[in-house]
């Protein structure tokens, strides 16, 4: 399976490593010409959403990626990636793809001193190690969005059609189950 990882800024190498360990061919998206190829899924990694959102547009990849996701391309988004997908951001005027009908709060746990680790339940996977780094959470999700995980009554992982998103960073752990869940979505799409 061929997976594209948005590589304009942030922790894209960690996703790449995990996907390659799971047998995928990975391609990095840094500019428009990287989008001439086809792929079976796309990853929006952690990093700074302000930087990624800006570079997506200025390096002329925004429209192409947006229409691919709208047309059913499976997407895995972590942390900043979740912010890129969200239709609403409560504490920021910027909007990016806006395809996931949720309202997120950026830096919802405060500054770096608020970053934390939590072993929490993910629906269908069981207990999962969650790294929250200056993380967002989802304040409100549309009723059609499937909630996969909550921490302290805040939604931190969701699935909505072809979109899988988490406020934490499965790519920073050794646990590949969340990525496998994503690859399963890609496999079903190919069939």
């Amino acid at each position, binding site marked *: 399976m061929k997976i594209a990882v948005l590589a304009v800024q942030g922790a894209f190498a960690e996703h790449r490593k995990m996907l390659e360990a799971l047998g995928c061919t990975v391609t990095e998206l840094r*500019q428009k010409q990287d989008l001439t190829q086809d792929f079976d899924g796309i990853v929006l990694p952690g990093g700074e959403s302000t930087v990624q959102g*800006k570079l997506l547009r200025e390096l002329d990849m925004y429209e192409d990626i947006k229409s691919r996701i709208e047309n059913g391309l499976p997407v895995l988004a972590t942390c900043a990636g979740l912010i890129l997908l969200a239709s609403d951001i409560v504490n920021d005027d910027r909007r990016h793809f806006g395809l996931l009908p949720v309202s997120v709060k950026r830096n919802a746990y405060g500054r770096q001193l608020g970053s934390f*680790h939590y072993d929490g339940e993910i629906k269908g996977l069981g207990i999962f190690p969650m790294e929250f780094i200056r993380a967002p959470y989802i304040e409100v999700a549309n009723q059609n969005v499937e909630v996969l995980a909550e921490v302290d009554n805040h939604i931190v992982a969701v699935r909505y059609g072809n979109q899988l998103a988490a406020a934490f960073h499965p790519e920073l752990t050794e646990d590949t189950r969340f990525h496998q869940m994503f690859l399963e979505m890609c496999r079903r799409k190919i069939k």
Partner: protein
Amino acid sequence: MANRQYELNKELAQMLKGGVIMDVTTPEQARIAEEAGACAVMALERIPADIRAAGGVSRMSDPKMIQGIQEAVSIPVMAKCRIGHFVEAQLLEAIEIDYIDESEVLSPADDVYHIDKTKFKVPFVCGAKDLGEALRRINEGASMIRTKGEPGTGDVVQAVRHMRMMNSEIARISSMREDELFNVAKELQVPYDLVLYVHENHRLPVVNFAAGGVATPADAALMMQLGAEGVFVGSGIFKSGNPTKRANAIVKAVTNYTDAKLIAELSKDLGEAMVGINEDEIQLLMAERGK
């Protein structure tokens, strides 16, 4: 628990990779930096070029000024404390800074000891000009490393030298027999397990950025091609003719650091670069502070 925090702190540095961290002195500059695509800002009263020009003792910035910048932007905010000045570091932690730079740019407060960074919850980045310095800082608790370069000069030669030195030492250790690593630990004055990590992984155990003297998109791309995982730009932006345009160009050059055609495009009409001073013209080598 302390270990868990250290992991979270190393992971914040991972999130900054592929990005540009810009020195800013006012909330206005911080907003310009964020708009231009900085992945974090370094809040300080005077940028290194001005510290160099002014001379005298250079200290941690006014906490009020730093807080003004924290309020102005949504990206991580870093600030500098003097080498060995653990109380300045305590103050920065008290105002919830995202990263402390224990920096040779400021006047050192201790000429023997660095801060015991393992005693802090907040993360630290430290400068290094070779692998020994980098591993000693990591052993003291630094969760991110940057080259020292020579700050405030606009001359990239030292950053290049430090990055190449680190790379060649990592390559040397990677190719050694395991029974030779004990002696390396002795030579570098660092614990064996850090040397073993480098031997097995062919890299530092934390993220490594370039810093010091980066002034153009080509400088930034040069450091990335030499293996930096991101770039600090200090005086290079707000000491130049058109900070917004230059900052934007450097950010894009770091993302597409191997695309010469794009970087050539980005390098057009940037206005005047910071004037700069050559390495052999300067009186004070900041990189010699804190080994």
